[in-house]
């Protein structure tokens, strides 16, 4: 076998020698024959001709000899040359086909790049599939923060994790030189980096025990911080940096490749150290999350059971704080990509459909061509080309098209990846850092190869199907005239139905996603989102440690900002609306049955002017006033959701609520009810909420909302400078108008990303589908010109011709639409996770899609119908 291959190969490379040897051999043969004839007495001249005659066609013998030993290499090259010539002959067809393929493939490759980056590429940690996201869960939250006390117990008691490390967000005021700037940071436990398997590129990581309260203050810098704030100097190790007035010693710098999506923007990483602000002393204060690494051989279910067991013990031990507090355990991977997975999968399905429609379109173009080449095929067949050889010719053309299209597709794909990763909004990149560096890699390349093979097979097979059903004699006899080929019409029509079906699915998907986005952005917020400037402030703890100092600051900010021209009113709050259902409080209603359950409500500390600034509607009672400070009894304003849930059918005004133990210090009286202001994200439920006076707190973080009479964005710089004139050490960040806030919420970003992309796919699908239909109808009309001519000569009216063509198009369209509507309902049910405020079978969307596609199809078939109706019978009959 091997010897045979070797001999074949040596023949292939010594082709010219093979030929000359064969030539010589055959010449010798002829000479011998001639000599024999001469011996028999035939004259020399005649003998030569006789020998030649008897020998037969030398070229043919050579070819056959060659075929017997060769690799068909040469006929392939011949086919290829011929295919090139064919494509060059009809550049319109070739360019269209290659473009369609390249576009379809480019989009698919690009989207796959993102899917690969997000879903297939492992996280940049050691053994990432053994890493867990560990959190608590409560009735209201499937995944809630972990309290430090619980974390410490879990860490000590568990038997399934080789390490369990906590992390939490933090903000510091960075004092560098004379400037003060708020910076995001993270507090982590000592083994955090070693659990991830990350080594600092400079200096060292945290050592065991360095996170305990009272230990020296040390900090590790992120790579970007080291580069931008410390000039990338290698001698920063050992230097000190001032964070919120405390001095920290820099011990390490993280490598450039390090990223931890849940706290990605963190510039400084400090050990947990002191239990902050009294919060971490309380078991009921949840402010951390944790990562865990599974011990060898332990499954995630075992770890979950283990932690749930510990949580149960703690619940029995500390009923007050831990009632119903369980454990939530999932792969870390799930935490990071869980939210984007449905979107990416939807996009991937969308691209798959788009690619399919592109292939189908090109396939039907190929069919049209093979149809108009019937005569050529018939002639070649009659001249002796075997069916196999003819088929090979078409396969070669298909492969050539696919190859050209795919080469273009790879280029477009690479370009699109770059473009899309630049288009991804910044806030989304913070959560999904891996989307920023999508590029061609082995996975993407393999995927590209797979779809190239698919396209090639499809494009090569279509004409084969077509050819194998063809009768050469009939084709010759027909001479390419007469009625359109039956087979072609049937297959072509089926392809058009497929195209329209896909177009409906994509259009409906885009419509539903677009509608979801619209609903999301126009969700009832409960306040006036226009002309509202917002920003966050961080005040240095050192200057503002007492309540009176904070209250003075609040009042000063209120006074100074209100005095700015263009400002109508000013409000202060601990959290702006539309951010999160967070910063909650557990309440108990005085005089109602209570069994220790955690009645979770949003708690917002606000200035008296805040709710009025939002233009929240007061339903009953009164708003907070300047008098509701620490020297007066505690009062609160609640939202309707709280009133509905805890005071059904009652008037809540005057009722009192407190903490779980109804301690006198926690008791506050309800003085007013407002209609719901959406505190949580756009796609989250409205939770019960209570608003109490900010004048009672010592919180140094707060947010400001400013109602302006003009463009809110234009007011932001003067608001910031005004704040700095009050105290230059105030850290100000997140200056945005409320409209910008809404547009940049994660939900809005994800929905917008999905809606735009799927919308783009749908637009392409619409164009391709309609072009496909146009192709079929136009082709069928051109084939039937003679038939139409005969009909008209026999008295058919133009209107009858019109309706004949339109009826054909109408049937195809209606069939496609019907299939499409059925399929798109199925598809939308699959992607209902992405829908917001719309049902998968949203009738207006489907009706619009059907209407748009129907109109487009009718327009596409109207042109050929018009051409058919304007056929001049005499010309049609005389032609050809």
């Amino acid at each position, binding site marked *: 076998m091997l010897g045979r291959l070797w*001999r074949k190969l040596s023949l292939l490379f010594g082709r010219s020698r093979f030929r000359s040897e*064969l030539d010589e*051999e*055959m010449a010798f043969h002829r000479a011998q024959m001639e000599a024999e004839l001469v011996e028999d007495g035939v004259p020399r001249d005649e003998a030569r001709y006789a020998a030649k005659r008897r020998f*037969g066609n030398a070229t*043919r013998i050579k070819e056959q000899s060659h075929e*017997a030993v060769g690799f068909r290499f040469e006929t392939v090259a011949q086919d290829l040359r011929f295919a090139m010539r064919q494509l060059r002959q009809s550049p319109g067809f070739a360019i269209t086909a290659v473009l369609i393929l390249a576009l379809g493939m480019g989009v698919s490759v690009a989207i796959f790049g993102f899917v690969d980056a997000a879903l297939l590429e492992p996280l940049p940690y050691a053994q990432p599939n053994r890493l867990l996201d560990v959190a608590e869960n409560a009735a209201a939250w499937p995944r809630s923060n972990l309290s430090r006390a619980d974390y410490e117990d879990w860490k000590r008691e568990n038997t399934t994790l080789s390490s369990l490390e906590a992390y939490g967000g933090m903000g510091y005021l960075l004092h560098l030189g004379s400037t003060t700037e708020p910076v995001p940071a993270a507090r982590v436990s000592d083994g955090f980096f070693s659990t991830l398997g990350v080594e600092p590129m400079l200096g060292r990581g945290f050592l065991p025990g360095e996170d305990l309260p009272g230990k020296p203050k040390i900090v590790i810098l992120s790579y970007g911080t080291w580069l931008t704030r410390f000039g990338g100097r290698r001698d920063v190790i050992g230097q000190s940096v001032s964070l919120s007035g405390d001095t920290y010693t820099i011990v390490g710098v993280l490598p450039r490749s390090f990223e931890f999506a849940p706290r990605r923007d963190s510039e400084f990483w400090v050990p947990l150290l002191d239990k902050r602000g009294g919060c971490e002393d309380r078991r009921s204060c949840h402010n951390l999350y944790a990562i865990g690494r599974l011990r060898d051989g332990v499954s995630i279910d075992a770890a979950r059971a283990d932690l749930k067991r510990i949580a149960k013990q703690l619940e029995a031990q500390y009923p007050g704080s831990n009632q119903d507090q369980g454990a939530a355990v999932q792969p870390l991977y799930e935490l990071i990509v869980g939210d984007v997975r449905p979107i990416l999968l939807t996009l991937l399905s969308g691209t798959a459909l788009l690619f399919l429609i592109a292939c189908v379109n090109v396939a039907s173009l190929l069919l049209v061509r093979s149809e108009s080449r019937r005569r050529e095929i018939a002639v070649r067949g009659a001249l002796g080309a075997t069916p196999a050889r003819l088929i090979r010719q078409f396969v070669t053309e298909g492969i050539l098209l696919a190859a050209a299209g795919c080469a273009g597709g790879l280029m477009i794909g690479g370009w699109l990846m770059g473009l899309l990763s630049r288009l991804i909004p910044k806030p989304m990149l913070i959560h999904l850092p891996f989307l920023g560096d999508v590029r061609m890699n082995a996975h993407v390349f393999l995927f590209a190869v797979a779809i190239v093979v698919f396209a090639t097979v499809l494009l090569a097979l279509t004409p084969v199907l077509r050819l194998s059903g063809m009768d050469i004699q009939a084709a010759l006899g027909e001479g390419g005239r007469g009625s359109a080929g039956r087979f072609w019409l049937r297959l072509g029509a089926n392809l058009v139905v497929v195209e329209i079906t896909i177009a409906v699915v994509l259009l409906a998907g885009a419509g539903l996603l677009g509608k979801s986005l619209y609903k999301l952005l126009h969700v009832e917020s409960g306040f006036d989102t226009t002309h509202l400037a917002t920003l966050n402030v961080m005040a240095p703890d050192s200057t503002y440690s007492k309540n009176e100092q904070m209250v003075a600051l609040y009042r000063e900010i209120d006074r100074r900002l209100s005095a700015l021209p263009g400002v109508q009113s000013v409000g202060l709050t601990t959290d702006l609306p539309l951010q999160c259902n967070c910063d909650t409080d557990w309440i108990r209603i005085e005089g109602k049955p209570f069994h220790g359950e955690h009645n979770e409500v949003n708690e917002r500390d606000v200035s008296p002017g805040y709710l009025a600034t939002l233009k929240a509607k007061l339903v009953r009672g009164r708003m907070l006033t300047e008098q509701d400070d620490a020297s007066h009894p505690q009062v609160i304003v609640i939202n309707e959701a709280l009133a509905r849930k805890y005071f059904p059918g009652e008037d809540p005004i005057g009722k009192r609520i407190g903490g779980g133990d109804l301690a006198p210090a926690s008791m506050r009286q309800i003085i007013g009810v407002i209609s719901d202001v959406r505190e949580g994200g756009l796609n989250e439920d409205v939770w019960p909420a209570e608003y109490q006076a900010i004048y009672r707190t010592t919180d140094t973080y707060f947010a400001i909302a400013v109602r302006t009479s003009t463009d809110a964005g234009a007011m932001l710089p003067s608001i910031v400078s005004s704040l700095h004139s009050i105290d230059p050490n105030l850290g100000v960040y997140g200056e945005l108008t409320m409209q910008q806030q809404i547009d940049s919420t994660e939900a809005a970003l994800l929905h917008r990303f999905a809606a735009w992309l799927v919308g783009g796919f749908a637009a392409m699908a619409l164009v391709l589908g309609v072009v496909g239909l146009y192709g079929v109808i136009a082709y069928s009309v051109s084939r039937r010109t003679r038939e139409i001519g005969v009909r008209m000569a026999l008295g058919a009216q133009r209107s009858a011709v019109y309706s004949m063509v339109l009826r054909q198009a109408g049937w195809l369209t209606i069939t496609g639409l019907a299939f499409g509507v059925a399929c798109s309902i199925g598809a939308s049910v699959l992607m209902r996770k992405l829908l917001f405020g719309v049902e998968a079978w949203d009738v207006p969307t489907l009706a619009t899609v059907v209407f748009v596609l129907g109109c487009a199809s009718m327009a596409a078939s109207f042109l050929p119908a018009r051409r058919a109706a304007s056929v001049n019978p005499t010309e049609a009959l005389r032609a050809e």
Partner: protein
Amino acid sequence: MAGKPDLLPGTLDMLILKTLSRAAMHGYGIALSIKRFSDDVLTVEEGSLYPALQRLLVQGWVKGEWKTTETGRRARYYTLTAAGRKQLNLELSQFEQMITAIGRVLRDPQEA
């Protein structure tokens, strides 16, 4: 040509191999030899001979060598290889089986 029986399909290779088992020969010699041995009944078409020879070469059953003939011209002489001899024996036994089988079918039962 009419009236002359065609070569049984698949037997050309065997005939060439058998011919070469007697002596090394050039293409013309093979054609001539088959013609003579068959008393002019079998004529090997050149159109089949040369492709067949190439096929046998590739299979490794024959070997080609350029030599000078008695008349002083260069010609390619083919010789049988060991593998070719094995192949010839195989084909011969298969052919005999086939002929015997056909003979049995064709014989009239009364004669048995």
